[in-house]
Every structure is written in structure tokens, then in C-alpha cells.
């Protein structure tokens, strides 16, 4: 089981489309659209509905937690309202993300598919603020420089380590391995850079588009730097568990 997602949009088509897109990379995650508003029997109209959102939260939840992503302003208000109506136990497992809807939903779904906690999934959604174009990623090389144009934070202190490896698996560093790496690194006390981007961001790792035979270069600084490099090295050399025993695909 995994964290479920609720996609709230003014448009039923947008909500369904975002779920469809995210499902491509997260086949086992409950993705529940809550788009449009009830229109007394007819087709859904533009707007958001408390009832649809509340029902979607129940459907997505199933005990493993839910992250809600929304589009424009009143979708946020409707979602907040639905949260207030949950009983306390259920409320504790649901998070409302401040995220770009499409990018956030894809990142969150990938993180949920990889078995991330509700907090992991929330963070993946909220950090996915960039479109997936490597040349656009320059300002985002560090987690601490999350907004375009912001200066990079002070360099971290402590021991450093680095390594580089060639990707052996056919699929390379695709969504699932990106989520595995980001989640493993998130627990470590180190700033980790992978090919120039923040190694703790699923979306940025995916955006590198590294296929089989490409080189992964990582630098880590901080108390857990050594562990971070070992984690990346072990995962890459293992082909992210996607190789058979004789090393062939």
C-alpha cells in the first residue's frame, strides 16, 4: 500500500488528466480526481465541490495517508474545508500541498510509488517547482535555493566525499530509481549533488534524463557524506535492482 493522492481542480478534465499522467509513473498509487462541481445530474461544471473533495480523500486514504494537490485559490479553500470536516485521526494522515499541480502530482506519485511516507510525498510535491528541462535547472542546484534567482545558501560544513559510476541498467536513472535515491539521501545529514543538481529531489534527478551507459557523479558534504556516496554507489552498481544475476538485463 502507499500514500494516496487527491487532485483538486476547477476542471474535471484537468483533474482526470493529471491523474492519468501521474499514473504512468505510479501504477500502484491511488490517484483520485476531484474536479469540477456538482451540477445536479448534468456534466461537471467549472468549480470545486466540497463533497467531491471529501469523498476523494476517503477513497484515496485507506489508512496510508493522503496528499492533496490543488489548482487555483478556491480549490485550496474547498480542500481546507474538507480537511476541517475529517475526524482527528484521519486528519492527522492528510496533507495539503502548496505545489505546482502537474509537476507536483507527478513527483508525489513517483515518491508514493516508491513507498515514501506522507511527509516524503508532500515534500516531493512541494519541491517540484520546475519544469523538466535540464537547462532550466541552473538556479535549482541546491535544495536551499528553491526559488529562481535566489542565492545559494552558505556551503555546508564537514567531511566531504565523492564518486562516479556508469549506469548499468537499461532504464537508467528513471522515476523509480530517482525516488529510491532521493528518499535514501533525504535521511542523511549531508548536502548531496548529483551531476550538478540536488540529489534529494526526485524531480531534479529524473530531469537529468540519464540513460544506460551514462555517468553519475556525486559529491557530498556533511557528517553523513561518506554514507551518502556509499548509498548512491551501491544503488547504481546494483542497477537499482533491475539487473538479473549475471549482470545482464
Amino acid at each position, binding site marked *: 500500500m502507499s500514500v494516496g493522492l487527491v487532485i483538486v481542480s476547477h476542471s474535471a478534465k484537468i483533474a482526470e488528466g493529471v491523474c492519468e499522467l501521474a499514473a504512468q509513473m505510479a501504477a500502484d498509487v491511488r490517484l483520485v480526481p476531484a474536479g469540477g462541481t456538482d451540477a445536479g445530474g448534468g456534466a461537471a461544471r467549472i468549480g470545486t465541490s*466540497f*463533497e467531491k473533495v471529501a469523498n476523494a480523500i476517503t477513497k484515496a486514504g485507506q489508512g496510508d495517508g493522503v496528499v492533496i494537490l490543488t489548482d487555483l*485559490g478556491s480549490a485550496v479553500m*474547498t480542500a481546507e*474545508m474538507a480537511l476541517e470536516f475529517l475526524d482527528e485521526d484521519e486528519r492527522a494522515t492528510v496533507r495539503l500541498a502548496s505545489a505546482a499541480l502537474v509537476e507536483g502530482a507527478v513527483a508525489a506519485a513517483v515518491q508514493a510509488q516508491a513507498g515514501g511516507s506522507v511527509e516524503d510525498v508532500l515534500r516531493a510535491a512541494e519541491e517540484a517547482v520546475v519544469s523538466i528541462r535540464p537547462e532550466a535547472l541552473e538556479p535549482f542546484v541546491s535544495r536551499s535555493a528553491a526559488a529562481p534567482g535566489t542565492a545559494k545558501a552558505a556551503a555546508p560544513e564537514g567531511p566531504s566525499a565523492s564518486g562516479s559510476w556508469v549506469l548499468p541498467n537499461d532504464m537508467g536513472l528513471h522515476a523509480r530509481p530517482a525516488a529510491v535515491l532521493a528518499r535514501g539521501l533525504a535521511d542523511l545529514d549531508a548536502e548531496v549533488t548529483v551531476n550538478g543538481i540536488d540529489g534529494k529531489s526526485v524531480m531534479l534527478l529524473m530531469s537529468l534524463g540519464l540513460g544506460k551507459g551514462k555517468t553519475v557523479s556525486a559529491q557530498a558534504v556533511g557528517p553523513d557524506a561518506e554514507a551518502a556516496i556509499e548509498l548512491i554507489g551501491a544503488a547504481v552498481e546494483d542497477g537499482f535492482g533491475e539487473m538479473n544475476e549475471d549482470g545482464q538485463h
Partner: protein
Amino acid sequence: MALDAGWAQEWLRAAARAVAENRTHLMELDRAIGDADHGENMDRGFAAVVAKLDAGPPPATPAEVLKAAAMTLMSTVGGAAGPLYGTALLRAATSLGDAAEAQPDAVVAMLSAARDGIVARGKAESGDKTMIDAWTPAVEAAATAASAGAGPGAVLAAAANAAQAGAVATDPLVARKGRASYLGERSAGHRDPGAASTALILAAAAEAAGGPG
């Protein structure tokens, strides 16, 4: 009349009539600075409220009426007005509790709770060119009237008049919340649709009370 469950029902029916009559007007206000859906959304939402009142058993308290209306508006209005008016009526219902009828002080407390709910939900402040600019003067006028000894109907009438003046006063403001805020300076010179519908709804409350009483 006493502000009992019958009054609360008549309030919502009068509001539904007013919203239906002003549907085009509200849509035109929203077309100028928003997405042109306020009239249609409010008309659909209040028509659903009336249908619910028609279908249900007669409620015992005004709070029951307002709570049922709130839940309906939240699921049928669609735009920002759904959660905003939904929250307002829910908070109003909570404020009234299980009283069979509202006395002047309870009317003031009810309006104040509704306004506070809208502020909490929409995070708007006075002067942002939102429905708050109608609600806050309404609450203040109601409090002034109640402390001068006005009856419940007169308290509502004072609130309604102040809401209408507050709505008119949004004309020159520059929007700082909601869809209209995307327009910046160009939002000045138009009345805020939410403030306009607030004035209609509070006028309906006063009308249902049948004047000073």
C-alpha cells in the same frame, strides 16, 4: 417576526430570489474583474438550497437551517463563494447554537462569527476589495444598532444597509485577493461581486424579518 427557524428558511428563500433576479448583474460585475461566473454559481447554489428546504422536514432551529444551507452551498456553488458563504453560514449556525430564536445580541454575534469565518477561510483584510468590505461594516452597524436597543429586525436592517454601502465603497478599490487581484490597478472602477452578493443576502435576512421588530 421572531428570528426563528421559519425566519431562517424565509431568509434563504428571499436570498435565492434576490440572487436569481440579480444573476445577470452579478455575472456582469464578475465579468469585469473576474471569471464571470458569480451570478450563475450563486443562483445554482441557492436554488439547490431551496430545493433542499422543500425536500426536508421542517427544522426546529435557525441553526439547523443555516447548517443545511452551508453544506449545500459548499458542494454546488463551485467558485470561491462556495467555501466562503459555506463557512460563513456554518459559523453563524454554531454561534446560534440550539436557540429557538435569535435576540439582538445573538444576531450581532451570528454576523460577527460569519464574518470571522470568511476572514479565516479567504485570508482577506478590509480594503482588499472582497466580500469582507461588505461584511465588516454590516457587523459594526449591527452592533451599534443592538447597543442602542434596536429589535432583531432593525439590527438586520442596519446590517443590510451598511453592507450595501460597503459594497458601493469597493468600486474605487484595487483588488488584492482572488481572481481580480491578477488585474491589479485595472480592477479599480468596478464593484466587487462578492460584496454585492453579500449586500443582497443580508438584505434578504432583513426582508425575511419583516422590518423592525
